[in-house]
């Protein structure tokens, strides 16, 4: 119900939303939680394990019970949304979760009757037999019974965002301490980011009847925020939770951008921020802690801070009769505030024998030296049982406000391994000191997070910390505020018989914790895993300290000796969609397109990925079915006429300088300094460990200008390698290199009619241009580079022009090829052509092969040193036990062979230790049928042998003949001729 005259909501802006199909009325400024409370809804969810009816306990991110599914237009569902965080907007639709068939009648409530069997670690004990039942029967059952919200099953196609921000100082939290810190640093001119998880600045000031400088706390907070927003050096980020402290002054934060309003095109739902700030002030405040007493989880049992919060911020109370319980002065503060608002307080129950004098002065009945030992009301609280001395009796209450004291929110300060420190006097864990091992560098706690209690102390601490961090910051007078600082005691459990909840989110009771200790899980980390305490979405915010205290009690240790579990980022659930914003589908990786891409697609070529690049698989012809027919036709162009293919994706690195030959000698296994200008040489590059890194051709265009070609896949790796060699080994050589891959559109022209095609378009006659020649020429007015190289085994050229001419040249080349009986060919044909010739790709140069394995050991020059030369001589990298490159052809015509298959000798078992090798590449050769390349133990000595090819994934078992890896034109006459 609403209380007139209370709340920061805008009563002129009514809103309508739906919960479980029922209309809920609220106002701008409400959360779903406050609207439900105002509406009189107390039952909002079912507990994780026992399916017990639950209501709201808190007002914030830490809410353990009030998790709902948000339904969006189009069928999308966002589960596990905290109703306390979800701001109300017109048309919001929410649904309760983890219940069936409905919230009021949940059949799985039977779990609550089975509770004696479902205690801590029950699944370790109960479902032991038969063993096979665990995966097939028990686990699915448990998973169905216990749980959170459901996913829609649809892809999340909504927009999300990632962003970066930088500041001198990050202030985390905009309560009294955070606002003062931001104000002090901001007025001093520092670049400040003030991040606040809530939709409004003020922290507890929004939730209490506090006065600052004579005005209501919320008004003061608004005025500070207004000033901060006028400062150009301060950036205020509301609805932004700092979720983690990371290395190098890095902070992760999650912003709710569109979750509090109806979806709009392009409006991100959330933004995942990476903030870099060398210093941060942790003004994250404190959270009130519950008390363990039997049936303390009924809808209507709430934290006292939340009862006051709903009253002051939202003008809402969850019932007409409220009882208040706690060993803390906040209990009577709650009673006082409620009575002032016209709400009936039926009892103030204070465990202290000597409750403060003022506690007896209000319009309520005080029960000093008393505790609550039970509650009544399955779907909503009706009464609480009070024990005073030896007697127990019931008092009516629809709401029980529990004031257990406060826990500073310290987790961010512990993200790098430091542990919080128990303060006996304050009965609370405080953040680790700045010099503690694993403390977060640059982080200073302030305000309630640092253990300060009164509003005045928090204001002063925020200002003090900021003034200490920012040089020459001007001091200014502190605003006047309450200095009331009630003491708190270590009061965790009333010690009555019955199930008393500690972790509401994961259904862990005091019994479970004692059981864990009794069964030997007495370390806090073991207890956590055995009971699952602290492992729910609330990360144990409401339960960790109580659980540690109870474990300490059960094991006879002190709280500091018991310690805490490890704090890890993130402090709240972060949607993967936000962290991976933009990376869905094709956003996963950048796409690289060649200059002729559109011209290639215009010929309906299906495109395949090659690294980040897209290349044509084949060029379909009318009436032709399937890729194999197209591939055979395209192979025929090259073997019989002339074919054109786009090779722009190959890495091109231009090198210059008088010492380039010497540099290349060191990075290539073979000799390059002897190469004449106008000539090209095939090169093999080794890694430091002696294995092959890459191959390709390098052309010497002139005395001191060279261009290196790398494979498409290894272009970046080779560039990095060259950079490394230059910086680490040969820094004095006068050679420089830069990637020119994207400058040039390059096409292969291959086949017996290649020269005829070329001569028809060159500006000057080609003249003598032998195999492995190169030249800088002009082509139809454009500058061009011509290379006589071949990856097909035919008479072939590659011609490169500046990218802008790429589309036109591709069209022209293909048209000319077609007029000569040829045409364009794609990757499938290119692959068959090179397999026929035994040419290598990264299927063979996969990082575990040596020059010896490839039959190229003679390329490793003995006349000079090079990277990898010595390492390649190591024992085990040469010899008959190595798997060596061979060719394969099936012995039975029409039988398939596949890349990835393993090779076995006849008569040996088909098990891994008997595998003699594996297949790297296969292709349908029009001349030879299916052929392949493979690595086979001592393969070069086994040409002519029979071997069994087995692919156990595709159920292929084909006898093959081992042969030399060059099937076509072994002496290379066609290529050179």
């Amino acid at each position: 119900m609403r209380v007139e005259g209370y709340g920061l909501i805008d009563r002129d802006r009514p809103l309508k939303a739906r919960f479980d199909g029922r209309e809920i009325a609220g106002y701008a400024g409400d959360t779903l939680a406050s609207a439900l409370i105002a509406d009189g809804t107390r039952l909002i969810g079912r507990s994780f394990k026992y399916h017990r009816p639950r209501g709201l306990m808190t007002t914030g991110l830490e809410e353990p019970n009030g998790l709902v599914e948000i339904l969006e237009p189009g069928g999308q569902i966002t589960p596990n949304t905290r109703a306390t965080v979800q701001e109300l907007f017109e048309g919001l639709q929410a649904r309760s979760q983890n219940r069936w068939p409905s919230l009021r009648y949940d059949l799985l409530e039977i779990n609550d009757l089975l509770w004696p069997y479902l205690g801590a670690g029950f699944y370790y004990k109960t479902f032991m037999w038969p063993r096979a039942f665990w995966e097939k029967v028990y686990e699915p059952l448990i998973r169905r019974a216990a749980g959170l919200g459901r996913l829609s099953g649809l892809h999340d196609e909504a927009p999300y965002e990632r962003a970066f921000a930088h500041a001198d100082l990050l202030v985390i939290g905009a309560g009294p301490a955070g606002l003062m810190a931001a104000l002090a640093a901001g007025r001093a001119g520092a670049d400040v980011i003030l991040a606040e998880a809530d939709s409004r600045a003020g922290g507890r000031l929004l939730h209490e009847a506090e006065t600052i400088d004579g005005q209501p706390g919320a008004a003061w907070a608004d005025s500070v925020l207004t000033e901060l927003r006028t400062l150009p050096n301060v950036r205020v980020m509301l609805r932004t939770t700092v979720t983690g402290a990371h290395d190098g002054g890095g902070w992760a934060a999650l912003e709710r951008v569109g979750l509090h309003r109806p979806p709009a095109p392009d409006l991100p739902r959330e933004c995942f921020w990476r903030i870099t700030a060398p210093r941060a002030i942790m003004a994250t405040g404190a959270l009130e802690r519950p008390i363990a007493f039997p049936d303390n989880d009924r809808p209507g049992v709430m934290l006292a801070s939340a009862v006051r919060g709903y009253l002051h911020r939202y003008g809402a109370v969850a019932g007409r009769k409220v009882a208040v319980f706690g060993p803390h002065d906040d209990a009577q503060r709650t009673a006082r505030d409620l009575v002032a608002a016209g709400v009936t307080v039926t009892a103030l129950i204070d465990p202290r024998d000597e409750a403060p004098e003022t506690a007896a002065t209000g319009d309520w009945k005080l029960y000093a030296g008393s505790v609550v030992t039970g509650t009544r009301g399955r779907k909503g609280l009706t009464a609480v049982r009070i024990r005073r001395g030896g007697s127990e009796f019931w008092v009516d209450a629809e709401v029980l406000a529990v004031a257990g004291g406060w826990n500073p929110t310290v987790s961010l300060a512990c993200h790098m391994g430091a542990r919080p420190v128990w303060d006996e006097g304050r009965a609370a864990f405080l953040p680790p000191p700045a010099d503690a091992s694993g403390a977060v560098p640059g982080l200073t706690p302030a305000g309630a997070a640092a253990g300060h209690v009164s509003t005045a102390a928090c204001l002063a601490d925020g200002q003090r910390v900021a003034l200490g961090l920012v040089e020459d910051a001007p001091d200014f007078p502190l605003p006047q505020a309450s200095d009331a600082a009630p003491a708190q005691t270590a009061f965790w459990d009333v010690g009555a018989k019955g199930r008393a909840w500690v972790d509401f989110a994961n259904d862990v009771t005091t019994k479970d914790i004692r059981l864990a200790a009794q069964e030997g899980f007495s370390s806090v980390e073991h207890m956590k895993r055995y009971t699952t305490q602290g492992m729910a979405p609330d990360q144990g915010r409401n339960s960790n300290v109580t659980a540690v205290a109870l474990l300490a009690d059960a094991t006879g240790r002190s709280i500091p000796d018991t310690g805490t579990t490890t704090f890890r980022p993130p402090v709240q659930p972060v949607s993967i969609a936000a962290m991976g914003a933009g990376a869905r589908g094709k956003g996963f990786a950048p796409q690289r397109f060649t200059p002729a891409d559109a011209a290639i697609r215009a010929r309906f070529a299906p495109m395949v990925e090659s690294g980040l690049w897209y290349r044509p698989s084949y060029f379909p012809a009318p009436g032709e079915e399937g890729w194999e027919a197209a591939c055979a036709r395209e192979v025929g162009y090259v073997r019989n006429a002339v074919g054109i293919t786009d090779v722009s994706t190959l890495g091109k690195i231009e090198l210059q300088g008088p010492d380039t030959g010497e540099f290349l000698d060191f990075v290539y296994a073979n000799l390059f300094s002897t190469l004449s200008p106008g000539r090209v040489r095939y090169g093999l590059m080794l890694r430091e460990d002696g294995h092959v890194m890459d191959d390709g051709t390098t052309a010497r265009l002139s005395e001191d200008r060279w261009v290196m070609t790398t494979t498409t896949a290894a272009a970046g790796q080779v560039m990095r390698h060259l950079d490394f060699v230059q910086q680490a080994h040969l820094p004095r050589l006068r050679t420089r290199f830069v990637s020119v891959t994207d400058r040039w559109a390059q096409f292969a022209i291959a086949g017996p009619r290649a020269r005829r095609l070329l001569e028809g378009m060159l500006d000057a006659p080609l003249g003598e241009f032998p195999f492995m020649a190169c030249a800088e020429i002009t082509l139809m007015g454009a500058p061009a580079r011509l290379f006589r190289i071949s990856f097909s085994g035919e008479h072939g050229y590659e011609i490169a022009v500046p990218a802008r001419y790429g589309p036109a040249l591709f069209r022209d080349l293909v048209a000319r090829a077609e007029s000569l009986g040829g045409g364009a060919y794609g990757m499938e044909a290119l692959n068959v052509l090179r397999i026929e010739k035994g040419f290598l790709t990264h299927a063979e140069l996969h990082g575990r092969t040596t020059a010896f394995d490839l039959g190229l050991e003679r390329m490793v020059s003995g006349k000079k040193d090079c990277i990898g030369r010595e390492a390649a001589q190591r024992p085990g990298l040469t010899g008959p036990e190595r798997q060596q490159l061979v060719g394969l052809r099936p012995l039975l015509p029409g039988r398939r062979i596949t890349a990835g298959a393993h090779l076995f000798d006849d008569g040996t078992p088909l098990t891994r230790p008997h595998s003699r090798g594996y297949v790297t590449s296969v292709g349908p050769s029009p001349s030879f049928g299916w052929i392949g390349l493979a690595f086979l133990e001592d393969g070069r000595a086994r040409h002519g042998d029979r071997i069994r090819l087995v692919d156990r994934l595709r159920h292929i078992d084909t006898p093959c003949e081992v042969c030399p890896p060059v099937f076509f034109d072994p002496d290379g006459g066609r290529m050179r001729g």
Partner: protein
Amino acid sequence: MAELIANGGPGGGLAAVEPIEAAGCTLELLDLGPVAAIQPWPGRTGAVDTALKARGLGFPAPGRSLEVADTRILWAGRETAFLIGTAPPALSEAAVTDLTDGWAGVLLLGERAAEVLARLVPVDLRPRACPEGTALRTLLGHVPCLILRRGGGFEVMVMRSFLSTAWHELATALRQVAARRAAQG
């Protein structure tokens, strides 16, 4: 004899090249003109600087750029500068490599340009850390790029093959920032 048609640049195969206006920013393709890498021989940066100074430019310090008339020279990596807008001079103490067509540029102008770019670029773009004339080698999303802060906006240069992805990323960031502004009313 027929001339080869130069229809591949500067967009180089990019389909949608209409400028975009959103969030008080404009995004448009930039015709870089000639681009060349200048890389002094080891220890000869000073001599190259002197030679370039004679032409009114100089070799830029790391992270910096220089500009004269329509010509810019940007630091572009380890002992490397890109000369943009004019044909490169012959330099005896440096490697000079023509990169024209190899790099493509996008211009992002407007009051919120830094805010848009902060969706994609991890480096500090605050004016103090990134003043006018700053040249940055960084990532735009996953795309390697070279960024120049110039004339109240940013010139974002990427290798030509990445242009389509870079444009898409920037356009998305622009629209999302605009949608935020619209939502905040």
